[in-house]
């Protein structure tokens, strides 16, 4: 026992400061792809996840990238499109609607820039329903729901509870019963074999409740998509409050999404700036 205690003291505090302090991902980290307007943007067939689409109108060729679908593989930023697309480092991508996760550029004229302006994260946080904030206050009890994930998102949710991320320090915890929860975090594209269980679990969470879709599969169907065994995303089955892109999202990205969900971001951001 004494040896354990000494060892624990020797290890010291390993918990990170995020979100009060910024988290800088390593150099090779693949965050949101950055599309540079110009004529060499890749065709949709480059993307294995179907995240890239295009259409033509009077302005020319529009190329859109759906961050909710993106699996951050980096293929669209590889030769020969490395000049047109770069893998960015931004991982704080969570948003209240799928629309906000669409990046669109006009591709035929280098003078025309992004057709969709970058998302205003603070405005996004302020959009949170004041009702949810009033009722849930500053603490959030969540129930995890695996709706057919590959287990990667689930592991990252578990990581949030490890001594490094320790989300309990922020008043966030994962509970065993939906009856004790303020909301659910859903991973996976909602398989046919889990659809009933998913619906019933969410119905068991008292109202008002929030639904957070974690990772590409939950947010859009991801690489799994829609098929005989998969609904193709949580919002095909239930209304979703927050979408967190990533395959899987790193733990800080999930934490960011949870904070977006409870509208606590602006406060944390201010603290960081002080």
């Amino acid at each position, binding site marked *: 026992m004494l040896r354990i205690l000494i060892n*624990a003291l020797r290890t010291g505090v390993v918990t990170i400061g995020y979100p009060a302090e910024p988290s800088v991902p390593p150099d090779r*980290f693949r965050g949101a792809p950055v599309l540079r307007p110009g004529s060499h943007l890749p065709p949709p067939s480059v993307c294995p996840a179907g995240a890239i689409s295009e259409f033509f109108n009077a302005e020319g060729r529009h190329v859109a990238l759906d961050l909710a679908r993106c699996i951050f*593989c980096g293929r669209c930023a590889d030769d020969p499109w490395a000049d047109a697309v770069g893998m960015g480092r931004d991982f704080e991508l969570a948003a209240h609607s799928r629309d906000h996760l669409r990046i669109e550029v006009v591709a035929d004229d280098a003078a025309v820039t992004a057709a969709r302006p970058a998302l205003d994260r603070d405005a996004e946080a302020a959009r949170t329903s004041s009702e949810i904030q009033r009722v849930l206050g500053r603490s959030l009890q969540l129930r995890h729901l695996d709706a057919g994930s*590959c287990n990667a998102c689930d592991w990252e949710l578990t990581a949030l509870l490890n001594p490094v991320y320790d989300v309990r320090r922020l008043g966030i915890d994962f509970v065993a019963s939906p009856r004790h929860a303020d909301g659910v975090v859903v991973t996976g594209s909602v398989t046919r*074999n889990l659809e009933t*269980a998913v619906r019933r679990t969410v119905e068991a969470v008292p109202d008002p409740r929030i639904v957070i879709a974690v990772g590409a599969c939950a947010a859009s169907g991801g690489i799994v998509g829609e*098929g005989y065994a998969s*609904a193709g995303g949580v919002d095909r089955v239930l209304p979703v409050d927050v979408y967190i892109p990533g395959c899987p999202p790193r733990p800080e990205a999930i934490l960011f999404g949870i904070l977006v969900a409870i509208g606590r971001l602006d406060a944390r951001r201010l603290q960081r700036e002080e």
Partner: protein
Amino acid sequence: MALATVVATDETATPDGDLKVRYVFEPTAPGGPDRFVTLLVSVDAARPEVPSLTTAVPAANWHEREMRDLFGIVPVGHPDPRPLVVHDGWPQGVFPLRKAFDGSRRVPVEPADEFPHLVAEGEGVFEIPVGPIHAGIIEPGHFRFTSVGETVLHLDARLFYTHRGLEKRMEGLSPLDAFYVAERICGVCSVAHGLGYCEALEQIAGVGAPPRARLIRSIALELERLYNHVGDVGNMCAGAAFHYGTATGARLKERLQQLNERLAGNRFLRGLVVPGGVLLDLSDDLLRSLAVTLQDTLSGLDSLMGHIEANPSVVDRLDDTGILQHQAAVDLAVAGVAARASGVDRDARRDHPHGAFAGPEPPELHVVTIPDGGDAMSRMTVRALEARESIRLVGEFVRRLEPGPLQVTLPEPLPGGRIGISAIESPRGEAVHWLRTDPRGRVERYHLRSPSYHNWPAVALAAETAIVPDFPLVNKSFELCYSCTDR
């Protein structure tokens, strides 16, 4: 010979005009020839029946139930004819892996009768249903315990809740696109399954990854094993209510996943292994960071194992708990840690060399087996020893790195109508990949038999030697994947 995998295919639209079942066997002698033997059976599409092998080859059990659900091929005389992969309310006579079935549309969920679980009756016999949604952050499965007091009489495990139809999803794709699906069948086996798919594809293409790429692939494979094994040791501590161990395991695993993110840009090492080789190189800086992290992991793991072994309350919980008999492990063709902890000397790194083991002068591999083991303690011991072996191997691979190309280009389109089979030692044991291209060089059929697929029935057997409150511990000691079983 042991059953490696069973692959059904729908060839009704080809000149053969039939369904086929391939029973793939492999030698069981340690280090025996790297060979698969396929028994090919042509099945009449008008009367799709094959005799069931399950009573003679117990490992065929789930394979046969799966081919009935997905292909409508009936294993006549099967002892357990309940559905396996498709669940309640699945329409009669609809077989999703038949070529005529359009896999892109959703099949609605209909109300259905309760699944016919095996029930025991008698005074004092209780049924305890658990799942599919569990109390923690874990994958979904339903466990139906029949118990008397605390003693488990029978465990009926129902899985395939995370069945996503991924094999169908890959059909018709360019093999290079389908790779991204294979890499995402399972999060914590991303390297192993990505690599298994690549090696099968490279066989079809008739190319081999360059030496430097092979070494980096093997480094990635060992790093995946390492973060899994270290995390699993911690998780087993959770099952034994030893919280210092849980937190330490989680902390060590976290450091390894942060290392993964530095090496590959992804905490599960996704995006490193690609068809033809590897996408990213290891710079001197990264190699230094790798060496430091592995050194710290080694001392952290040694200290954790010291605490576990010195703690009678933990050792008591693990010793003689959840026993898997050697013969049962052989009969069920159990793989990986669970097999070796029950004295079955199998390791695909040696038996079907891949990655750096496939090159000339492969490094020596110490396969850890415990001849009189079979309990949770043995599975923990095997994991701890294998984690150390992985650290040693990574050092060896790094020493062998020579400058050179990282990738070979695959021909496009790929040769049509060819089959590739590979076996990879994933963190949970041997995973067998079977891939065939269509005449245009696209994916015609892909099938993954994960180690967990063969190991799940063994969990039920081991649970029947334990008491109900020890089930979480028994389950964690096997640490199987649901997602790579269900696909």
